């Protein structure tokens, strides 16, 4: 589709967008080729001369040092990109999917359905995310899938509101009346006529969703309810903090920390760049 190509071009034209796309793709490559790049098995405890290599500072042996339990930080950071990527992208897609549909239905149907769904959104806004996610994870058990589900289950709210307001203005546009006049059904109007017009906004929320859900995953992991079978950056920080290593072992804190920040900021930047494409009022005026 021409429009998408054009949007992508516009994003890449923006230095922020380009930076974001470049960093995200680097992380994606890291995640895909992690087994080839990692110097060690990130789960295996490393020994030097039969001694557990506990909290070793960076050296030729361990480029980014080792953890409290003697594992290679670099390998963990590399494999951690997988969780970030999986949680980030899947949760973002799910939450956007839910939010877009709710916004679409609420905005289009209006009336009682709208106020019902919007009250639901209000409630979702009223719930403090981290504590509630903490509770839900306690309910379903910590695993990466549950984290994804919980994040998307709670974070659709912003998307729904934005999409709804878009739909509200779109449905007043004459082309919707034109579709009605030609006999299109409500469903057809919603999904064929309106949806393509809000999709760019949805895509923006995927970009932002990546940032939010990565942050959320890190936060939940930091509270100690991350998936214990996988290594994520937030979990590394949790271990660094809870074992007291965070005090001195900067090599244990900074790499995962910088990775989180970099990953999130890249997603934000893509979002920022994309927002200027999607929201014409933000673009520099042309005439």
């Amino acid at each position, binding site marked *: 589709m021409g429009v998408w190509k054009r949007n992508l071009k516009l994003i890449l034209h923006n230095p922020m967008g380009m930076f974001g796309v470049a960093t995200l793709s680097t992380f994606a490559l890291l995640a895909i080729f992690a087994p080839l790049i990692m110097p060690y098995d990130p789960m295996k405890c490393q020994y030097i001369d039969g001694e557990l290599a506990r909290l070793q500072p960076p050296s030729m042996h361990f480029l980014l040092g080792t953890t409290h339990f003697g594992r290679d930080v670099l390998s963990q950071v590399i494999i951690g990109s997988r969780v970030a990527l999986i949680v980030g992208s899947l949760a973002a897609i799910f939450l956007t999917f839910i939010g877009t549909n709710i916004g679409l239905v609420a905005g289009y149907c209006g009336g009682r359905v709208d106020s019902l769904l919007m009250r639901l959104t209000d409630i979702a806004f009223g719930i403090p995310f981290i504590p509630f996610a903490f509770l839900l994870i306690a309910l379903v058990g910590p695993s990466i899938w549950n984290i994804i589900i919980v994040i998307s289950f709670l974070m659709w709210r912003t998307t729904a509101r934005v999409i709804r307001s878009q739909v509200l203005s779109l449905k007043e546009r004459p082309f919707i009346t034109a579709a009605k006049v030609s006999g299109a059904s409500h469903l057809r109007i919603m999904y064929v006529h309106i949806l393509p017009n809000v999709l760019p906004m949805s895509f923006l929320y995927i970009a932002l969703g990546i940032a939010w859900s990565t942050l959320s995953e890190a936060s939940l992991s930091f509270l100690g309810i991350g998936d214990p079978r996988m290594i994520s950056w937030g979990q590394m920080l949790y271990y660094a903090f*809870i074992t007291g290593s965070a005090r001195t072992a900067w090599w244990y804190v900074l790499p995962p920390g910088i990775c989180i920040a970099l990953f999130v900021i890249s997603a934000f930047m893509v979002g920022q760049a994309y927002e200027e494409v999607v929201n014409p009022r933000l673009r520099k005026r042309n005439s």
Partner: protein
Amino acid sequence: MRKGTIFFGVALAWGFILAFVLGLVMPTAAQGKEPVVLKAWALTYPEPVEIWRVLSDDLRELGIQVKLRNGSIGEWVGDIIRKENPYHLVTMTWSGSPERIEPSWFLTEFFHSSRIERGRNYGNYVSKKFDALMKTQLREMDPEKRKQLLWKAQEIINRDNAFFPIYHHDMIQAYNCDRIEGVIPTMGSCIGWPYNPWTFFRARPKGKIREPRVVNRKDLMSTNPFAAQEAQTMGWMRLIYDTFAKRDKDSKLIPWAAESWNIVDDTTVDIVLRDGMRFHDGKLVTVEDAKFTFDYIMKWKFPMFSADWRNIEHVEIRDGRTLRFKLKSPYAPFVANILLNTFIIPKHIWKDIPSSVGVANPMDWPNPTPIGSGPYQLVEWKKKEYFHLKANKNHFIKPNFDGLYYLVVPTTEGMIAMLEKQQAEIYGFALDAVQANKLDALPYLKTVRVPNHSITEIRPNFKMRPTSDPSFRRAFQYAINRKGLLDIVYQGQGVVAHNTPIIPINKPWSNPNVPSIKFDLGKATQILKEAGYTWDSKGRLCYP
């Protein structure tokens, strides 16, 4: 109206689509032989997670896949204890609280068939012979004979591989050696826990600070000794209230508020109250007070004073100093469980509680100024900040300190920092070896490492395949790298467990003939092979 239907239509449609997609994604059942997949449960703490990370690696070499679920202690109770345990393996670390030094505690709680229903025997282990042994030892008042019975019980556990013990990790704490001398480490309590606090009785101030500050992560939960729910608060309460017996620094039972006890017959015990004890308010401790305490406990049936006390039929005053207990049945750990844990409360304060303070149950009374007869007296409690204990110089133990400040510091980091900056003298919580090494480097700090009768173990479920299979359990024992785990998780600070819940140094109760099983994957493979297990093309272990 019509739009309302659309909404539900859309919701329904998406529901179907989702269900359909999920159905496609869901893995279809494996064909052919069924591979062994173990469901395991562990607490969401770094240590158990660490154990399973290492263990899963080793089990993978055996072709065993592990599905681990982590949860809170509440989930452990809710899903595993109170309901049918749905996991093959459950990891748990049992802390070394004082009553667990009593040798029958772990054995009974873990393996007695009466503890299956809603009890701690969630491995569903049943052995008639073991049950019978446990029953006999409880009535056996002769220590030597009782030891024999308990050794036999441990042999049965070992033979059946009823559980997989891993290690007993040390307890490490630290103190400022420039300011304090003569600390007395005790098993399971080290120097800072209030469980068995000989340091607070015998250690001396060195220099100006006569009221040392102890840092702890936990705060006092309540000053009502009957409402105290967890071990720490109970310990603190027993600094303020005197118990009848105590354990000495070698964990031997010694007289305390009771000068002596005499087992008259299987169901009769006499105790003689120590002379000249006074409550903090100056009133004398009388035998009346002692009897009142027991009557009060039996009347209100406090949850924390459980079945053991209900075995007492009645208590009677023999003379001004002697109290006679009549038991319903012989009870070997009478001193260890009852005399050690019961404290004397002043009758003149408690006799009208709860009615005089308008609550239904004495547990609901805050008891703002606890008056006991113990070596320390509570003078101030600022919640979540600190509490201040003043030494009771009239107490027979005559503490050398003038008092104690317990500072509540919410993080390990904070506690360590306070010790480093000499803002506190005693580290009253658990340290790990790495932190301990750092503290040891400072000239004015000394760390103390004491063995702990706590135990970290994995419980196989006898009601599920394959953990119900004796050969599988035997093989599993060889797949646990106990030494390795202790090295990784606790820097080797501790003792590798023998195949019994009782720590080897808990003599004479621990059976020295029960071996510690060495890590040997080859042996494990061999046992599995002999038992008919096979491996499929992907190297997965399959049921015979």
